[in-house]
């Protein structure tokens, strides 16, 4: 299972050098160098070349580097895949509707990695942005290289003929389907962007709602959104304490060579352990020293 933290994924328009060159300073967990929706048809070629050079020369810091390519059925896809290099950690695939589509892209990556001697396994993040994609979400989640399902709400809303509302009730079925499919396949679920970059409270409320649903992260279209997203995905002190207690109980059980792990008289099963590990990782990613928590 691919368990790299992906609390925030920041979109960087592929034909904008000013934004690309600063991509590493915002401390997003992932940056997405976007060749698709952020680039007009007439600029596809120069954006692709700009992203190729940015991959060679721009320092993206600790962020995971992803490229959003154009859809495999467009004339741009093949050339987009040609710029995949050692610097690329993953491909964000738009409008995925079947496992077969992912398998084709995975086969292209097999070839690219072998030809270029790339010494890592490039992941795929499959974007769900149509009714058909949602209906096939579980098959897509189990397809080769898929590390996460991501939600694209704008296109999905159009596809089902819904009206996008501030409260977003029209999106909850799709979100539930994505989280359930992703978790059943043992991968991550990443939520859509919050389009209003000036509304921090709205962003916070929506990010809290999707975190409670089980999403592992949310996309950002502006660097200013990253702080709020990371804040929401930072566990509370109480959660951290509980998780540390779970980890301590595991340690004790291991020391006693006991097959059963118990905490306060209750048995701890695997999902609880996994959750505790994740909480501690999230806390550490937020810069919290879990060995020196403040007094209760």
């Amino acid at each position, binding site marked *: 299972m691919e368990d790299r933290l992906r609390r925030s994924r920041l979109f960087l328009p592929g034909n*904008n*050098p*000013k934004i690309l*060159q600063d991509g590493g300073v915002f401390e997003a967990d992932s940056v997405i160098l976007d060749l698709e929706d952020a680039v007009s048809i007439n600029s596809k*070629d*120069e954006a692709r*070349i*700009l992203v*190729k*050079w*940015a991959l*060679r*020369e*721009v320092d993206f810091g600790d962020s995971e580097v992803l490229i959003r390519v154009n859809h495999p059925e467009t004339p741009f896809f093949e050339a987009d895949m040609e710029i995949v290099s050692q610097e690329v950690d993953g491909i964000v695939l738009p409008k995925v509707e079947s496992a077969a589509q992912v398998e084709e892209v995975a086969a292209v990556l097999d070839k690219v990695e072998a030809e270029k001697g790339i010494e890592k396994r490039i992941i795929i993040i499959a974007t769900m942005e149509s009714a058909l994609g949602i209906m096939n979400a579980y098959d897509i989640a189990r397809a080769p290289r898929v590390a996460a399902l991501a939600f694209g709400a704008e296109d999905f809303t159009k596809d089902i003929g819904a009206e996008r509302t501030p409260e977003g009730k029209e999106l909850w079925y799709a979100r539930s389907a994505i989280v359930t499919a992703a978790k059943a396949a043992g991968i991550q679920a990443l939520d859509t962007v919050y389009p209003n970059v000036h509304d921090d409270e709205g962003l916070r409320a929506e990010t809290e709602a999707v975190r409670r649903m089980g999403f592992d992260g949310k996309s950002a279209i502006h660097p200013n959104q990253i702080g709020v997203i990371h804040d929401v995905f930072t566990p509370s002190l109480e959660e951290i304490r509980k998780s540390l207690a779970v980890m301590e109980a595991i340690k004790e059980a291991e020391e006693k060579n006991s097959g059963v792990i118990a905490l306060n008289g209750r048995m701890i099963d695997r999902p609880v352990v996994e959750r505790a590990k994740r909480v501690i990782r999230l806390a550490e990613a937020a810069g919290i020293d879990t060995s020196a928590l403040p007094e209760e």
Partner: protein
Amino acid sequence: MKIIRDATAGSGEKSDCSVTVRPSDGLEIEITGSSAAFFRESMVAEIKSVLRELAVDAGTIEVADRGALPFCLKARVEAAVRRGSE
């Protein structure tokens, strides 16, 4: 690669540059913009490295710079050359 027609890539936005290539018998590089006075030499070297990579030995390359970093300058030169030689 041979430049056979005029072509442009990039923009006049900040941190970008606009590169125009034109067919020519010899190689000529013209750079304008605020960085040109300070970084002309390194910019010429960067442009030439891209031209070498693309096996271009003739053409007029005009760069209107708005503070582009080397990665951007090289990308815009490559894009303009490819557009002018397809």
